[in-house]
């Protein structure tokens, strides 16, 4: 199964990279989701797979029943999943805001001349002041 999981990781990573390289902002965000999944799988896999027992200590024992799954990568991946979710939520809302502000999800169209941008910002400021 390690082999299959390694291929899954590579496939998700490749899919993620491909999506991040797209012009569409939404696709880039989806790419980020795929990449973080790929990295989680990598960590989990490198900690070696154990089908037997989860790393839990039963009532009355002080040690888990051997053989048990490696708890360390699990802790790391757990952290990564949650952080990845925070990143995703932020990226999604940011993409949404950019679309609302700029009226496009095309990264090339979003690129404006810095002079233009500052002129627009000034105009907006004036509007707010009025």
């Amino acid at each position, binding site marked *: *199964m*390690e*082999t*299959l999981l*390694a291929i*899954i*990781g*590579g*496939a*998700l990573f*490749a*899919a993620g*990279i*491909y*999506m991040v390289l*797209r*012009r*569409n902002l*939404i696709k*880039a965000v*989806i790419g980020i*989701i*795929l990449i973080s*999944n790929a990295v989680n*799988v990598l960590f*989990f*896999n*490198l900690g*070696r797979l*154990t*089908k*037997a*027992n*989860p*790393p839990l*200590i039963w009532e009355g024992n002080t040690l*888990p029943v051997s053989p048990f*799954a*490696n*708890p*360390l990568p*699990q*802790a790391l991946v*757990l*952290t990564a*999943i*949650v*952080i*990845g*979710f*925070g*990143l995703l*939520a*932020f990226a999604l*809302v*940011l993409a949404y805001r950019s*679309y609302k502000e700029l009226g496009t*999800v*095309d990264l*090339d169209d979003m690129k404006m001349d810095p002079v233009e941008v500052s002129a627009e910002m000034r105009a907006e400021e004036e509007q707010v002041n009025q």
Partner: protein
Amino acid sequence: MLIALLSIFIVGLIAPGLYSVLREKTGWVLAILPFSVFIYFLTLFPAIADGEVITQSTDWVPLFDVTLSFYLDGLSMLFALLVTGIGTFIVLYGSGYLAGHEYIGRFFCTILLFMGSMLGVVLADNLITLFVFWELTSFTSYLLIGFSHDSAESRNSALQALLVTGIGGLALLAGLILMGYTAGTFEMSEILNSGDVLRESPLYLGILILILAGAFTKSAQFPFHFWLPGAMAAPTPVSAYLHSATMVKAGVYLLARVHPAMGDTDLWFYLVTGFGAATLLISAWLALCYTDMKQILAYTTVMVLATLTMLIGMGFPLAHQAAAVYILGHALYKASLFMVAGAIDHEAGTRDIAKLGGLRSLMPISAVAAALAALSMAGIAPFFGFIGKELLYEAALEAPMWSTLLISIAVLGNIAVVAAAGIVAIKPFYGPKVETPKHAHEAPLSMWIGPITLASLGVVFGSLPFLIDSSLIVPTASAIYGETLDFYLSLWHGINLPLILSVVTLLGGIAVYKIWTGLQSSTPAGLYSTTFHDGPKGGYQFLVDGMLSTAGWQTRVLQNGMLRYYVLTIVVTMAVAIGYTFMSRAGFAWNNELGSVELYEWTLFATIIASALIAVMVRSRLAIIVALGVIGFGLALIYLMYGAPDLAMTQVLVETLTVILVALVLVHMPPLKKSEAAGSKFRDAVIALTLGGIFTAMTLTAMTLPFDLFISEQFAEWSYPAAHGRNIVNVILVDFRALDTMGEVVVVAVAGLAVYALVKMNKKQSKNGGAES
């Protein structure tokens, strides 16, 4: 010595504060400081006159052999006295010249810091200390030259001076470090005794060129001479100080200082004397191409520096004797002349020679000071300049090589000096009175006390040379030469060739002065000045512009504002760097355990891969959301199968939220359109698959390596006894790695706040939008 030095820096830093208390008296109060340091050096005078050398040392960075060590011999003493003595008058003069100026406090601060740095350069024994002070003079002179920071010319000149001397400084640093390693010590006092090691070292040529680059840039030798006249944008007290006793003399000081260790070779003679002679010839002409008093004086400074370089290059006692006399003589008259030029500018409103004349009756003291200084500069008996010039001629005549050429250049140069002396001292004060922009009157006491004192010293030392010859000039010349010399100075050497040459010089100078106005407008003169002034300056400008445009081009290419090209750059670099290292160092390895894979595992695998493909290929937003969900829940199943219930639980929760969130947001976004060329899709697919391949290959290879479970087992063992937790993963998160988890919580909280802010901002906006519609 350390205390004397530090006191200047400390007082310099508090000078602006002092000014707000003492107001116009600040100059007089602050002048006490350099004056008392001057007195301090005078107390050490007898010892130095006896040929002693005083060293003091304090550890600074002992780890790297950097000590704050100081070395006082004749050469350092001469410079220390000049720096502090003239510095005293400069502070006074500055208080008069800039009286009422908005930034006068800043002026006092920087000029004192500059003085301290210069003093540090001439006293430093450790090479690194020397370099630090050397750079400090570059830096503080940048501030001083750019003092009138609201003028573009002033800023450009300051930057030019900083860049030229700064680049030279870098060369010097390299030279000093090589020198230190070759000689095996970083103390100048010890290096002076290991000249043979240096001269025989294969690195000698490199060290010499690097150190000369530092000295020549600082001392404005051709082709770096253009920054010094540019530095005239500084207020006059600064120019006077920079030119007479400090900054530009630092290069000469360095040459003189390292001569015993580095000199005495043919290469030294050719390079140092050669550059000196060339600069002398070029600047002699350039000096006569201007009508601005300060520009003329600036080029005469370049001439003197060139003469000194030439003399130090010659490398025999008489030349060094002449150099020692020249340093003192020049400092005295040049400081006076600059201060007088500044006084004229200040009182009459212009310093253009063509617009000045007949000021003698209006500014009598300045006129006297200018006359005394100019006579010394022109080298007329009984002024100190005369002794210097006679020695220069004698030295040039005795030069081991090229003596005829050198004496011709020396005479030509001095003819220009005589003419320049006449231009700056006679023209403004004598002849018919010319209407000046301001009604001229005598400058205040603080502005004439300096020039008159220094100019008078020129007469005193000239007529009574025994006052200083054995006590100051002999130790200085000995320090330059590297061995104790014994000689005395006198005005009258009998009627000999140097005297005849002096007369020729004088007559030639007067003749040039007479025809000067016609000379400057002639065409060859214009061409000449274009070639030798604008040429190097244009080269400098070209380099600066080239650097800026290269930087601009590079920024436009690298920072093109296209997100996916940034990602592409990173990703390709990663693929190449990791892929190459992996294949060349490790190579692919694989434990084939596919035989033990169950059917349901194959199914899961196929589902996830297919979903990834769908997520990439389809354009329907709903299909993408579903594919993402399948991938997430598929992974959760894998976590569950392999003993990670916590992970599975988290993954399910997060995946659910993700799908809901993505669906919510995508509803408000436009549908995905086909927008990209097949070519770029293919390129990206190749890159992505390559990276994915490397990813898989490295994972598989890593799995073949032995695995160390030590940490995991420790955690499992401690979990219950130490943390009273039965879920080991939880214990790791909240106990063993609690700080990590806290950081994570903070990150998620911040992300949550940011999301909230972005959404809320949106509401406000839409309200506005609603009001508009």
